């Protein structure tokens, strides 16, 4: 009794730590402390659980936790910042898998205790966490595969896909309902396996560049599966933590869809777009529009005499891992008295806020980064904009062309600046597969080539000026 109370109090403290940790994420100054507080909360929760009277054997727990924890730590320390989306997908899948496994064994325990059917609360929560956890596990692994390029990034489709997925969902739900009233392990296993397949076949048709939305969505799913586990175990900490994650995943999913000017349903069921930035390239009109180029050395000369330069990094910069040379360029220019800032579009990079992490890694101080709303009024006073591996987020069609699929998406209005330089490898279109008239604007010059190589060259040329 006494011990159980202490455990409950420890769970309350842990929940408080989680909330406080998220609250402190609201400013980069306190964010790291916030993450630490959340981690301490987790430690408190785990220790409290270990002293729970129901826990009798520790050997397997120690082994499993050691193996899992070491792998987690190793991967987390090694991973490249550009591979963050994959890692988040992987970790998310693990959480979903754990939730599903707990549900499966809760079900087994109920059966072993001789029960024939589950109570209503237990039925709903166990089935929810088994199915949603499985979907989240399989879906996250597919997302991981696409992002890690183990699977093709383009949408993989097959005939009657939606119909088959719909049917699959109905079968899984039916099985789950039946299994609630007739406890029988293989039934639930079948349902879980079908849910895994469903997760795979739901994520395969989604394009690689939409994976961040999928991950945020599956993140919310894992959170809710954890909350359902909390209902099954009558554990308020799991409910609170799961719901916090559910809220976060939901908000991020909405935010990304909104920034891409698409509905969440369109992203998840639309089979939209290509492998992320490297597709199509065929001009919609077919006309030969003028394209003006510039060399790195000419650009270097222009840059050192500019008063104000704005850098717009995009997905291509992340792919090219060009964050270090871009930082070097910015420093060189600042040294020479040029005013330099970075303009960050909300969906630049591969996941929300990813561009900020990449630039932070390259030691760009975060107060040099402007959000879209801050940057847009600045472009008219800007001499040169460097658009590095960005495409859709600067496409004026989003503002001007009612027929464009991008129409209505908020963009960085770089065409208001004096000069625009675009760093990319070809005239290929970006993720949305839409032609970008900015490249044909008389004030635009193209600097073709891999962003990392171009920037390294440019840095040398600036040093030489």
């Amino acid at each position, binding site marked *: 009794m006494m011990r159980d109370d202490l455990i409950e109090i420890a769970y309350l403290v842990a929940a408080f730590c989680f909330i406080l940790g998220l609250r402190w994420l609201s400013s980069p100054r306190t964010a790291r402390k916030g993450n630490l507080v959340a981690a301490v909360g987790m430690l408190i929760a785990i220790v409290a659980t270990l002293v729970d009277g129901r826990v009798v054997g520790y050997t397997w727990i120690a082994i499993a936790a050691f193996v899992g924890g070491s792998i987690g730590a190793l991967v987390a320390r090694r991973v490249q910042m550009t591979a*963050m989306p994959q890692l988040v997908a992987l970790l998310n899948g693990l959480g979903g898998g754990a939730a599903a496994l707990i549900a499966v064994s809760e079900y087994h325990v109920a059966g072993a205790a001789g029960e024939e059917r589950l109570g209503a609360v237990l039925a709903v929560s166990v089935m929810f966490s088994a199915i949603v956890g499985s979907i989240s596990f399989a879906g996250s692994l597919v997302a991981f595969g696409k992002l890690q390029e183990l699977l093709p990034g383009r949408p993989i489709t097959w005939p009657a896909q939606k119909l088959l997925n719909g049917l699959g969902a109905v079968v899984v739900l039916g099985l789950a309902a039946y299994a609630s009233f007739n406890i029988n392990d293989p039934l639930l296993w079948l349902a879980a396996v079908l849910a895994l397949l469903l997760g795979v076949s739901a994520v395969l048709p989604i394009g690689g560049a939409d994976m961040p939305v999928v991950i945020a969505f599956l993140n919310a799913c894992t959170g809710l599966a954890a909350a359902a586990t909390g209902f099954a175990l009558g554990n308020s900490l799991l409910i609170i933590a799961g719901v916090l994650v559910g809220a976060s995943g939901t908000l991020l999913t909405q935010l990304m869809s909104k920034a891409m000017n698409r509905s969440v349903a369109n992203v998840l069921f639309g089979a939209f777009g290509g492998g992320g930035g490297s597709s199509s390239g065929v001009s919609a009109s077919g006309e030969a529009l003028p394209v003006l180029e510039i060399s790195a050395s000419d650009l270097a000369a222009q840059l050192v005499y500019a008063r104000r330069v704005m850098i717009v990094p995009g997905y291509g910069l992340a792919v090219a891992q060009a964050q270090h040379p871009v930082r070097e360029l910015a420093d060189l220019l600042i040294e020479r008295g040029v005013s330099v800032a970075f303009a960050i579009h909300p969906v630049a990079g591969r996941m929300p806020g990813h561009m900020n992490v990449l630039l932070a890694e390259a030691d760009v101080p975060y107060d040099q980064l402007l959000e879209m709303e801050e940057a847009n009024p600045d472009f008219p006073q800007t001499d040169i904009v460097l658009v590095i591996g960005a495409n859709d987020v600067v496409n004026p069609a989003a503002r001007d062309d009612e027929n464009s699929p991008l129409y209505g998406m908020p963009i960085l209005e770089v065409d208001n600046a004096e000069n625009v330089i675009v760093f990319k490898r070809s005239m290929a279109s970006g993720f949305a597969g839409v032609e970008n008239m900015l490249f044909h604007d008389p004030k635009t010059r193209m600097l073709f080539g891999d962003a990392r190589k171009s920037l390294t060259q440019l840095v040398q040329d600036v040093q030489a000026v």
Partner: protein
Amino acid sequence: MSLITELVILVLAAWVGIEVISKVPQMLHTPLMSGTNAIHGVVIVGAILVLGAAAGGTVETICGIVAVAFGAANVVGGFVVTDRMLQMFRRRPEPPKENQG
């Protein structure tokens, strides 16, 4: 704890979550995602209960071992990588040199 009490907690927690998370700036959305990822690793608590209480049953033991390992990887990996990202966010070191205004 009755179902309805659990629902009360659910509603309140969801509300707190929405309020708190909508305050996180865009700049920190990637750490937010990895951080919340770590937090849902709290299912490890459930996994420990399953595995620790397993009275030798094979199903619970196997499920429990995998779930604890998954949960541990989720928790440790999530917090470590979030910390790695956040420690990189720095303000400009010296007082501003007016290079962006």
